[in-house]
């Protein structure tokens, strides 16, 4: 298994190089640094001097791929491609528009992001799977039918409405929790309750329906009939037998997003003013902070690949028949 994992890590390298090339092409070839300077500086009649200065401060005044003016290795290293793209591989993200170090900022903001994303993930999974098993338990009854209709209706509502409606009802009308903000330590719970509940509720419709179809695939298998024939109660059949056997398709969809929890949620964090990575990304997008967006794209890809790796490992944990070689 170790050798399999090492091989998988090596497979990830070409993909990361590809992601790196995509970001390089998007951010430096589609638009020249001059265009970006003009977009960032905003003014229509910006002087060439200001553009040159903007580029010099950020290190965008170097040639793209090959520096003819430098000596030796400098010909390759003293370029935008090396300084801005290759350095992403060692998580050297450079500086944001406000001059702060992006890597440091990301470390700082991971905590608040996880404080929201992890409870939403765990609770959401628990609620959705329980609900789906309940729907399967009442399979082919009116309860099942209307449950599915409710799921479809819930997944047809935009996440924006859950957040706006939740904030309006709970915080403004009933004044149970503060509308937005964040605090450290135990005090944070006050601010986290509403976003977590909204995050769970907004995801239920789609995921409960999805798990229901997975469980329905299993419900007519022979082992289920055997379990019923043994005289086990339907609940035991569902929670002990069906759930375990449905683990592989569930894990395929679930484990891959675990590393991405670090990135937080764009919408929730920005509506509730939580200083996590979601807010950071959204602020960067709105402020056209290209360096931060580039860093987040690369980080997201790395985390996704880690997620794929974790998925493979999780298969061996839940299903002893799977051997990674």
């Amino acid at each position, binding site marked *: 298994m170790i050798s399999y994992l090492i091989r998988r890590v090596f497979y990830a390298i070409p993909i990361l190089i590809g992601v790196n090339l995509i970001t390089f092409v998007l951010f430096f070839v589609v638009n020249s640094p001059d265009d970006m300077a003009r*977009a960032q500086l905003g003014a229509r009649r910006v002087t060439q001097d200001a553009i040159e200065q903007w580029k010099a401060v950020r290190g965008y005044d170097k040639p793209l791929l090959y520096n003819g003016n430098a000596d030796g290795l400098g010909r390759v290293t003293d370029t935008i491609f090396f300084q801005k793209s290759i350095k992403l591989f060692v998580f050297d993200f450079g500086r944001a528009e406000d001059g702060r170090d992006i890597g440091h900022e990301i470390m700082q903001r991971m905590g608040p992001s996880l404080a929201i994303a992890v409870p939403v993930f765990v609770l959401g999974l628990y609620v959705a799977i329980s609900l789906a098993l309940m729907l399967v338990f009442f399979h*082919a009854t009116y309860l099942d039918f209307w449950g599915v209709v409710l799921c479809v209706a819930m997944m047809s*509502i935009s996440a924006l409405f859950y957040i706006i409606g939740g904030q309006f009802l709970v915080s403004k009308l009933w004044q149970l929790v503060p509308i937005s903000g964040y605090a450290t330590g135990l005090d944070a719970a006050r601010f986290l309750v509403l976003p977590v509940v909204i995050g769970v509720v907004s995801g239920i419709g789609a995921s409960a329906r999805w798990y229901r179809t997975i469980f329905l695939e299993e419900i007519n298998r022979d082992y289920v009939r055997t379990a019923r024939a043994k005289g086990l109660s339907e609940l035991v059949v569902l929670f002990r037998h069906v759930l375990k056997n449905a683990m592989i398709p569930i894990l395929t969809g679930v484990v891959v997003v675990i590393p991405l929890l670090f990135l937080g949620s764009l919408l929730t964090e920005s509506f509730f003013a939580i200083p996590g990575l979601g807010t950071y990304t959204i602020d960067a997008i709105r402020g056209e902070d290209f360096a931060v967006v580039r860093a987040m*794209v690369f980080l997201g890809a790395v985390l996704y690949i880690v997620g794929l790796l974790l998925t493979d490992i999780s298969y061996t944990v839940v299903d002893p028949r799977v051997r990674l070689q």
Partner: protein
Amino acid sequence: MPFIPAMLWTDALIYILVGCLVLAGFYVRSQEHLLVVWRKVLQSRPGMAALTVLLVFVAVGLLDSLHYRPRDAQGEIRSALDALLVRLKTDSEKTYSAPFATHLYAKETVEREDGSQASVYPRLKYGGAHLADPAQSFADILARASVAVIVALAAWLVVSAAVTVRLARAAQIGFARAARGIARGETEVAWNAILLATGVIALLAVPALMLSSHYHIFGTDKVGNDVFFLTLKSIRTGLVIGTLTTLTMLPFAAALGILAGYLGGIVDDVIQYIYATLSSIPGVLLIAAAVLMMRVVIDSHPQWFATTAERADARLLALCLILGVTSWTGLCRLLRAEALKLRELEYVQAARAFGVSNARIMLRHILPNVMHIVLISLVMDFSGLVLAEAVLSYVGIGVDPSTTSFGTMINTARLELAREPVVWWSLAAAFTFMLALVLSANLFSDAVRDALDPHTRSRAARLSAARAAP
């Protein structure tokens, strides 16, 4: 002619799409084996009710896609919908006003005749302006609404009777028997669901349209625009994003998926590498990066676009392309897996033994047999894309701010809830229309998937067999 027809890029693509759908419809009618599958969709009651609602949305969207340039107003592009609802477009108030209100929502200081100043809610310029006494507005609305309801019911009865007569003629049975058949759902097409949906739509739409000429039925927004009109205009944007995105990525996804699955080898490796790379970047971030760059390109070439409408349209199309580029990987993966399976089947082997070229096998034997996956993903993606547009507009990487869309509406409306007193109607209007659109799209796509997907078909058969057994 008092106007010149104008064609935006998205209009052209929409017409092409509609043309393709019509052609596909004729083709399906001529092929018995395809007809069997689609009859299942026609039988599905939720599916047909949803389709009826969807068709109303599509009709509004198509009306809004017929653009022209009036001779008197140079440069400004209008649509047929603007021309039909010209009063809604031009009758704007000063600022917020509540639904069916006769007065503004904010107090204004006016000078009385005796010279003293007073703070009053001024009358609206258009909403309820025909009334001598605004206190009568409730009775007036009630009277107009009852007339509208009677008109709607009459129209609905005429349509229902026409459908019944046609069915009765086709089956050569009496009118009463045909009507009973429809009510019980014994017809081949789920006419009871269609007629029920038509009735509900008529009961809502006719009063809305008739009242909207005298009142702002959904109120007005901050700059006094009629919210009902803005909501209707948003429909087109949602439809464009929902359909054109899938349409633009479809050729690539289909070609690459089939090539990878059928040819295998190095082609497969390269294509798999491309989609693994693209799909490893989280969607929102890739879209954000691409949209930011697209915006810089458009901003640094202002000479490409003659009018702001054309520029907004180009941004809309670019957004569709970007969404397409970031979302084709899922479909491509499905098609590759299916082509991989089909390649080993006897009929493909036979074709190869007869010396049919690879290109021809892929076109004649593989492509038609993966079309159900393409269609399913087309209808399944639609609702997700409409929802995504709203989120992207909130993040700031959606459509041009001058384009009316559900996203821009929600974005401007979300701060209005924090106002005192609360302005809730823009948000409520966007919410209602979006829910109706997305919900009907979801229900319809479920019906299509149940009919087209052999996987669910076999499962449904298994389930009904299992239920029948004990």
